[in-house]
């Protein structure tokens, strides 16, 4: 993989904050130094970084522009001036880092390969050994179909599905859920970086950070009734997930506003963007609003009018869960636009 030149935030134009969100400059250290990992952050940041030229004149994402977009997102999120800084705040040499991708949508609509490569590159620059990084999802064949190169063993970045190692025998429970966890999570990851895709979801309303954790448990099919509520929030409360979750970078290079979670090109668009946040609830809220705006633009009903508003987001933010913030007045939304 080619290294990108050092980039600074000056290369991006900071634009106005949308709606009721607040443009703030809260310190990045509040995140990494949080006493309780995974606890709701008082005023979380959500970054939306867009690059209209992400694909250049073609249809594939340009690797170098993706690295740059990732750097801009992370530097804005962690208030760093150089690309490596945020990652050094996030991980330490010796950590085993799991990149939970979403490979369900096949080659066209899974976590972007260039994004995952860029994250691997930056993690290694922060001192993580290649073999301590594992790219994973539920199923190895799905990962292959999505374009990932399967690798197990050796001094390289690992990539395989839970089907290769199985789920823990013991059931873990929280609230309404009782599930067995992927051994990749419990035995191969000290830290979890969530790399979901921005999607409409027929049951849950939307699918991003929180919903992507359904790929960690053995029985997600049990948790789709009632708009996946409160199941999604409860799954994210499972201690092994909550304790490891550090960061979400949502792939919005391509997204859907209807017909999800599968890929239906007629209901998709290309935001050519990344959403980054430490707070998965805040990220899901912001992503939900992006989908609602696109639905309105296309003349579709709101998700609420369609009887599938993502109630799980509010549940995740409630007093029982406190997984994050869903109040737009308390979310610091920073929108970035890459130079052409």
């Amino acid at each position, binding site marked *: 993989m080619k290294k990108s030149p050092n980039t600074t935030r000056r290369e991006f134009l900071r634009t106005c904050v949308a709606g009721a969100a607040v443009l703030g400059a809260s310190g990045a250290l509040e995140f990494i130094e949080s006493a309780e990992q995974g606890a709701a952050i008082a005023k979380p940041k959500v970054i939306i970084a867009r690059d209209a030229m992400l694909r250049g004149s073609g*249809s594939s994402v340009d690797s170098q522009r993706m690295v740059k977009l990732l750097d801009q997102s992370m530097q804005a999120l962690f208030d760093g001036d150089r690309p490596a800084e945020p990652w050094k705040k996030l991980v330490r040499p010796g950590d085993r880092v799991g990149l939970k991708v979403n490979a369900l949508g096949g080659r066209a609509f899974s976590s972007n390969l260039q994004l995952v490569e860029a994250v691997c590159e930056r993690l290694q620059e922060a001192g993580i050994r290649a073999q301590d990084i594992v790219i994973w999802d539920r199923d190895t064949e799905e990962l292959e179909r999505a374009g990932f190169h399967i690798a197990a063993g050796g001094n390289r970045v690992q990539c395989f599905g839970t089907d290769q190692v199985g789920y823990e025998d013991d059931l873990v429970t929280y609230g309404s859920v009782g599930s067995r966890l992927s051994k990749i999570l419990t035995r191969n990851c000290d830290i979890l970086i969530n790399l979901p895709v921005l999607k409409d979801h027929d049951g849950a309303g939307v699918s991003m950070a929180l919903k992507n954790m359904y790929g960690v448990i053995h029985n997600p099919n049990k948790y789709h009734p009632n708009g996946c509520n409160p199941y999604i929030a409860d799954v994210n409360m499972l201690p092994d997930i909550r304790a490891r979750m550090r960061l979400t970078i949502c792939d919005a290079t391509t997204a859907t506003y209807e017909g999800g979670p599968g890929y239906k090109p007629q209901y998709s668009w290309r935001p050519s963007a990344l959403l980054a946040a430490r707070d998965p609830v805040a990220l899901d809220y912001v992503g939900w609003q992006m989908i609602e705006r696109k639905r309105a633009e296309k003349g579709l009903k709101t998700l609420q009018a369609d009887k599938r508003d993502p109630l799980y987001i509010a549940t995740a933010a409630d007093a029982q869960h406190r997984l994050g913030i869903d109040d737009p007045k308390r979310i610091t939304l920073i929108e970035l636009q890459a130079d052409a």
Partner: protein
Amino acid sequence: MKAELLTRGILSLGLTLLAAGCHRGQTNVAAAFPATGEIRGWSRTSDIRSFEAGDLWKYIDGEAEKYLKAGVLKASTADYKFQNSLEAVVDVYTMSKAEGAAQVFNSEPAADARLVNMGDAARLFRQSLIFRKGPHLVRIVVYEESPEAPEALLSFGHGIEQRLPR
């Protein structure tokens, strides 16, 4: 005695209906997936994978609920390439009744679809084609937009439609 006869009758009817349902579920949908070269420009690049109703979530996650409500029995899928460049996926969902296929078909916004004459109803988009024929719902998606995609989808769709039992 009457009660026993009634019970036997209900059991017998139930078994008959179950057998009929199984028979429909076992319809050889695999024959609907053209082999390489059978339709000009199209080659199959994967095996045909099948998912019974109870396992459909493994393929399409939460979207499975919509199909279950519509009485899906089975889904089959395979990957294709057009002229060795455009990648595509074909999904065939087999429902217990034609009404189920219509239910899913009608639940999706027509958006800017072109209505085409195929099966019982069909919609052609720039990158995808969806049609239904009897209890079958077929979805073909190409991964990239291309000027030749709509016509390629049309000819491919007709080929699949002709191979599908009603």
